């Protein structure tokens, strides 16, 4: 075919075709694609549960499913989305693919460990899927004791083990990134020449390495308590269920930053590339990532304002939670400042980036409402919380993930997707998202509690709006699935640098060769050096001008 003429003759995708060449690969790019298949599958599994939840909530009476089934639906939606999609999505797919290329390395420091992390992820998912298909799980994704250890009759142990196991894949990925970023940078690639994507992945990796072991041990204690009647959180032997909440949120709050920090890294890349400008205040954005990672470990208590913790603890946690807003706001302001007087172009990835900035701002500001104790007591366990964290996780992380996927898709696949369809679906997702979740802010403020399958009839209008939005959102997620798959076979060849962007990943072929670069690059320029590098390096690829 004529369209394949521009693809490089030798690249990582045609370096072996058999099943073994994928399942035993040590190439970080192929492992990234293995993860892509995994997280996409679990995204749609989690999405299927969301569909059922929204269907149930279109009417005030609990008519579609029983209350018990509904408990299982929201639990399995949460577990699938949090542990098997949101946490691995950006680091394990885009991070895996890009971290070595962006720093000019041939691979991650430990390729075998990287492959092992994918298998660990899949084995963990298998355990959890087993729990789901053999009767489900109804504890909520938070596994609160004593319900999870004593009362629940659902499959807590296999689900808990699945999450325990998957945690190790996250730890190994983080470990691999930290060592790679420290030891594998190309000559001249100093810390302050690193793309901000790398900085945010470094910060994310710190959280993965420091936080994940704590959830691992906590969930193990829950399993031991359930299985052997050991009492750690059981009041019958003097244990304290609130201690479980402390240990759980010590990881699970930072886990939110595992989801959002890599997303911020993606947005920094997109904003710079489509404004043709260096990111405003590079070092502030870089250090903001580290600040978020550090502060993120000190705010877990804001999930426990109503759990009976002391009012002084609540006060401190409240203040610290407000502090997280500072580095987050630094990022939002700096992206906006980057756009100011930039040569902004509106390709699909940029649409996602703009969407991210707006939605993340709403999610972040409502986070401040929740960080103030008085207001939080009023909206605790209402749809306000649900709306808030979906603005961060869906409006933030998934928008950035899709933006990044579109931006680097030509690099990953070597081919271009249908730009018109892509723009259309970005718009559909943005509209569908807001229609789904904005009404939930109002519902929560009016007092509709989360985790019930029935509700007073006066809430129906807003719930119907939300369910209508969810159906639009669902369609929006299916369209990219279709045209991206289509582009794999029929898309035009992209060439090395379809966006005219800077960054080492755009200096190699699309798709890159297995060893990433034909010779190790020497970096003599800063990140986002849009004024000088584009001109000088475009001459390297005359086909691209």
């Amino acid at each position, binding site marked *: 075919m004529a369209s394949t003429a521009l693809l490089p003759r030798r690249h990582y995708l045609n370096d072996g075709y058999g099943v073994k060449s994928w399942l035993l690969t040590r190439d970080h790019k192929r492992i990234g694609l293995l993860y892509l298949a995994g997280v996409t599958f679990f995204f749609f599994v989690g999405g299927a549960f969301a569909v059922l939840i929204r269907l149930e909530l279109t009417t005030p009476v609990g008519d579609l499913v029983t209350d018990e089934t509904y408990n299982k639906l929201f639990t399995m939606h949460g577990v699938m989305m949090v542990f098997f999609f949101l946490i691995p999505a950006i680091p394990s797919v885009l991070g895996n693919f890009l971290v070595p290329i962006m720093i000019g390395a041939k691979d991650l420091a430990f390729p075998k460990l990287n492959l092992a992390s994918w298998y660990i992820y899949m084995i963990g998912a298998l355990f959890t899927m087993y729990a789901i298909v053999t009767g489900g799980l109804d504890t909520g994704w938070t596994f609160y004791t004593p319900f999870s250890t004593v009362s629940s009759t659902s499959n807590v142990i296999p689900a808990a083990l699945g999450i325990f196991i998957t945690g190790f894949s996250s730890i190994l990925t983080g470990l691999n990134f*930290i060592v790679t970023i420290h030891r594998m940078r190309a000559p001249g690639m100093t810390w302050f020449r690193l793309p901000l994507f790398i900085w945010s992945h470094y910060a994310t990796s710190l959280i993965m390495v420091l936080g*994940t*072991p704590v959830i691992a041990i906590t969930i193990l204690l829950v399993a031991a308590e359930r299985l*052997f009647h*050991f009492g*750690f959180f059981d009041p019958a*032997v003097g244990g304290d269920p609130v201690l479980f909440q402390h240990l759980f949120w010590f990881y699970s709050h930072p886990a939110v930053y595992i989801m959002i920090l890599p997303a911020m890294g993606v947005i920094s890349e997109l904003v710079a590339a489509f404004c043709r400008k260096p990111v405003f205040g590079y070092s502030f954005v870089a250090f903001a990532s580290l600040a978020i990672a550090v502060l993120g470990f000190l705010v877990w208590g804001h999930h426990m304002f109503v759990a009976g913790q002391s009012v002084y603890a609540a006060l401190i946690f409240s203040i610290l939670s407000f502090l997280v807003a500072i580095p987050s706001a630094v990022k939002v302001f700096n992206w906006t400042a980057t756009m100011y007087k930039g040569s902004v172009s509106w390709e699909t990835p940029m649409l996602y980036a703009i969407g991210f900035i707006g939605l993340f701002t709403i999610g972040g500001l409502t986070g401040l409402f929740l960080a103030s104790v008085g207001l939080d007591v009023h909206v605790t366990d209402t749809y306000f919380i649900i709306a808030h964290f979906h603005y961060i996780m869906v409006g933030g992380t998934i928008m950035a993930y899709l933006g990044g996927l579109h931006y680097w898709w030509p690099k990953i696949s070597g081919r271009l997707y249908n730009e018109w369809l892509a723009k259309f679906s970005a718009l559909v997702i943005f509209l569908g998202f807001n229609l789904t979740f904005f009404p939930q802010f109002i519902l929560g403020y009016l007092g509709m509690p989360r985790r019930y399958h029935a509700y007073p009839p006066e809430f129906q209008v807003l719930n119907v709006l939300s369910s209508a939005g969810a159906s639009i959102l669902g369609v929006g997620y299916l369209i990219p699935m279709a045209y991206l798959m289509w582009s794999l076979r029929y898309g035009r060849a992209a060439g090395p640098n379809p966006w005219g962007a800077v960054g080492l990943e755009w200096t190699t072929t699309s798709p890159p060769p297995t*060893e990433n670069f034909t010779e190790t690059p020497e970096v003599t320029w800063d990140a986002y050096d849009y004024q000088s590098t584009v001109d000088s390096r475009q001459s390297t690829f005359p086909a691209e001008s």
Partner: protein
Amino acid sequence: MSELIQHPALAHHFDSLEQQKEASTLGMWVFLVTEVLFFGGLFATYLIYRNWYPDAFAAASHELDVTLGTINTVVLITSSLTMALAVHAAQLGQRRLLLIFLVATMTLGAVFLGIKSVEYYHKFAEHLIPGPGFQFEKEPVHVRHAQLFFSLYFVMTGLHALHMVIGIGIMLVMWWWSWRGTITAEYYSPIEISGLYWHFVDIVWIFLFPLLYLIGRHA
């Protein structure tokens, strides 16, 4: 960079053996940090409950066998010594000594696990396994909180023992590599980073021993 002939142990994605060694050492340190946090969750739980129930913890701690615990502590510290000597022998390329010290380390590790299982068996025979069958007749007033102590005892020492088993597995691989000749004076980092792991597992025990066995013994 590649003026030397490429060393067979050098992986394709590293420029030099030195870079490879630095990477694997850093990797092990990062992993150990993870481990600190992993055990940290348990130590935090322990600290809180011990502060809440000091008397019950002291009473329950008296049920543990200090003699066997002390012997095990000595065994483990000695294994750390043989491990350090193994690393030293590897650095000097003394293959025979390296093999001997690795065997000594594994043997001491196995002795530790043997003594540990004797202790576990005693606890089982004395109905000190937490759960419905738990009995604490000496001081029945503490029967609830003593269960908490023994839950922590079994999970903490159990996870430690699991780390020992993994450690012995790693040492077996190291022994095989040393025997086969993969480990040389130029390429000994596998021994070194396995040693880091071994010492870490030792240090965990150094904390576990006083916290579990020696509560209220100073009086």
